[in-house]
């Protein structure tokens, strides 16, 4: 009926088909997959990757989740303020008497009922995950607004200068040309381990470069490059890549079924929200800081999930990705990599 604007129509039709399909699938899942009385039973939890808290608690490192300053209990534990933390150990030692003790005192994760997911997931735990750096929590009395350090340079940056730096680098400062790995138009070669930058927001890229520099995100190449860059250069490069056109998203929902389910529905049994809740419908990204996943090379995707899993990458705000990635199996991560890579028309 309406064929004038093809691109726009494709997206619109995609949404027209996609959203009802998601609804239908959700309804079907509810009606058929868990039908009848079984409706209210939780999805079975099979042994999978280690829960975030398991290694820490197993090691006896955390008296109570999130209360000790160095506590890796959550894998992410922003420590509460020094005041709160100093009081923690004694508070724990005399935690509420009798009836409450079983669940309340000591390592909370492992005192769970035998059937609890956390306890059931020890089996295939990856070897001891290193404790991520705690993210500082804000005090209850601190209402001051805070702006990220990369914001101002990004706002005043000149994309043209970013383009120059991207194509030529600044060898004297150890800054290699971005195009070498990320492609001439910000689209990385398929099958590689380098991310596609076209389609990512300037804010996201500026934050990532800043995070490489500070060490909360790590990569042998990128850490060195970012350390050679000034605040202004970070803003410029980020602004340039943000200006490049993103690859079109194919209006399809193909790929491994397990990945599609995780993307649109998540999983109740492991408390996994749908990836799309934050990363947008069909992995298109959402807001300034939630990156697009559609079209990212599978090798890059898997590397990042592993980096979250083992704590090499700790720049996910309060640790949500570190927690989710540890509740996914390697097979699921692989399937998600295939699924998102296949979402653009460019990729195969």
């Amino acid at each position, binding site marked *: 009926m309406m064929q004038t604007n093809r691109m726009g129509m494709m997206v619109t039709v995609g949404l027209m088909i996609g*959203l009802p399909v*998601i609804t239908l699938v*959700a309804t079907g899942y509810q009606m058929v997959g868990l039908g009848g009385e079984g409706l*209210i039973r*939780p999805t079975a939890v099979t042994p999978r990757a280690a*829960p*975030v808290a398991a290694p820490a608690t197993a090691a006896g490192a955390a008296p*109570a*989740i*999130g*209360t000790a300053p160095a506590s890796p*209990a*959550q894998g*992410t534990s922003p420590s*509460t303020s020094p*005041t*709160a933390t100093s*009081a*923690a150990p004694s*508070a724990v030692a005399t*935690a*509420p008497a*009798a*009836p*409450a003790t079983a*669940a*309340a005192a000591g390592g*909370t*994760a492992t005192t*769970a*009922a035998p*059937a*609890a*997911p*956390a*306890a059931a997931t020890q089996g295939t735990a990856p070897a001891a995950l290193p404790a991520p750096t705690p*993210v500082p*929590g*804000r*005090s*209850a*009395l601190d*209402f001051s607004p805070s702006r990220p350090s990369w914001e101002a340079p990004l706002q005043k940056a000149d994309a043209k200068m970013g383009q120059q730096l991207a194509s030529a680098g600044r060898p004297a400062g150890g800054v290699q040309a971005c195009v070498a790995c990320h492609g001439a138009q910000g689209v990385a070669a398929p099958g590689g381990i380098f991310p596609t930058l076209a389609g990512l927001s300037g804010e996201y890229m500026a934050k990532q470069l800043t995070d490489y520099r500070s060490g909360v995100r790590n990569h042998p190449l990128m850490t060195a490059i970012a350390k050679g860059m000034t605040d202004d250069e970070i803003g410029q490069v980020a602004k340039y890549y943000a200006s490049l056109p993103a690859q079109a998203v194919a209006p399809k929902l193909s790929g491994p079924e397990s990945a599609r389910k995780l993307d*649109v529905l*998540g999983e*109740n*049994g492991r*408390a*996994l*929200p*749908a990836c*799309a*809740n*934050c990363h947008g*419908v069909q992995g298109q990204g959402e807001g300034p800081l939630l990156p697009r996943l559609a079209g990212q090379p599978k090798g890059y995707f898997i590397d990042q999930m592993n980096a979250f899993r083992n704590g090499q990458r700790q720049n996910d705000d*309060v640790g*949500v990705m*570190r*927690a*989710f990635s540890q509740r996914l199996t390697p097979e699921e991560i692989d399937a998600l990599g295939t699924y998102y890579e296949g979402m653009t028309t460019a990729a195969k």
Partner: protein
Amino acid sequence: MAKTLPAVDVAIVGGGWTGAIIGKELAAANQRVVVLERGEARWPSPDFQGPNVHDELKYTRRHALHQNAASETYTFRNNIDQKALPMRRWQFAYPGTHLGGAGNHWSGAYYRFDPTDFNIRSHYTERYGAKIFDADLTSQDWPMSYDELEPYFDRFDYLIGASGQAGNLKGQKQADGNPFEPWRSRPYPNPPMKVPFAPALFGAAAKGLGYHPYVQPSALATRPYVNSEGLHMSACVYCGFCSNFGCEHFAKASPQVCILPVAMKMENFEIRTGAHVLKVELTEDKKRARGVSYVDAAGEEVFQPAEIVVMCAFSINNVRLLLLSGIGKPFDPVTNTGVVGRNYTHQTTSGVNLFFDEATNINPFMGAGAVAVTMDDFSADNFDHGPHGFVGGGYLQIQVVSGAPIGYHPTPKGTPSWGSEWKKQVKRYYNHSASITITGSAQPTRGTYLSLDPTYKDAWGLPLLRITYDFPDNDIRMSAFLTEKGDEIGRAMKGVVRTEPGPRKKPFTATSYQSTHLTGGTAIGDDPNTSVVNRYGQVWDVPNVFVAGASLFPQNSGYNPTGTVGATAYWIVEKIKADYLRSPGPLVT
């Protein structure tokens, strides 16, 4: 003829917080437990996943997670001289239904009651003299103290992954927390929430006036958390869809996130959804419950025999079920006798609408159900009541929930409610407006009570619950005082060009939302003449029936109820486990 099912040890009416806690604990104590939930099963995945869950029309306007007012509602009147009429749609409160109940669609504002809430009559009498209580107030002490409940508050904190910063650890004041906080044995399991702009402005102004603002504790996890049941929660993303919604992020604490997945792995724990309980069946001498009758999802009437019945329905629905079942003596305001339905209260809320200059961008869509800067300077007995002549208090705060497109159109007073002028004002103020909300305590009187309606019936032919309520003068004076304080802060806030204080006025109207904190009606107490249940939630007259939830409150605190609801549920079930199971019978004689 009702079908009779095989007997169980414990029948629990309602699948919300109290039903989940008590059911899971008793199942873990080897009881065969059946939870009867009138609504349908609802799980974060797939039911609450985005983008579909962000549907204001479905969840807020059409009440998808609230009791169906077409089949069961309440009637309302202000006093016994009026004829009560039924509410056709929810305005004054949002009673929950479906799995998780109100514990699923709540906002997550998370407080403990103040120690003086538990001994209000004796505390105020001691400090100010008996005259501080107006003659019509029937406020009464709880049978247990804050100190006795503290371990159970603590336990609920770690179940729900509460976020906040301790202000008082075991009596030691903490520099970075709320100086008025009651003592707590452990820090909050998670740090405080991030603060949007309007609450930050409120905090700065309140601090400047010498008050003690702090970030409101919440039941929205602020980082990944493994709770005391070993279940995972994720971090809140401040999407703003909390109140009236289910949480897609496993971040807002609810029975289905924090406890039911563990309970449901137990062989001897079962939830039946679509099970609408009609009444508790008693033996002929009315001294013992035989079980409960309900209508199942197929419309068939079923009798479920049980050794113990625990009433865990939405607060005032507990009261209705006791009345329908003939348990306890109904309260009669004329003769001032009877107990069931006595001391019903709501929450004395008010607010100050603030309008800002156009340089101050509030971004009202950046928020969460429980993200607020709040202050307790005028809560409980934290200030001298002597000069003011009322009991109780409340907190003042700015909480930014969401600038929901259907519901949020702030305009100054005098703006027409439609047309081009209305549109102009909405455009001007949508991003330049906020409200100070004031949540105050509510004292009961002889004339505020719950009873069965003599005229109107529900879809099953049973009398509706009738609410008879108006504000006592005490609460009107309190609201005027608190709202004036709110206005003072509002006027001191940066960028504010206009304030509109709205203190609560008589008569109470059932057509404006005033929180879902409906409390009382099955008061907990030490005296069978003024309470329905003893200090362990056990019905005085029928010892194998227990009641849990906000219907236990003899009057309402200025703080939100869920913390105290959770703590009392643990308190009750631990007593059942420790003593009642071993020797069933009255726990207090």
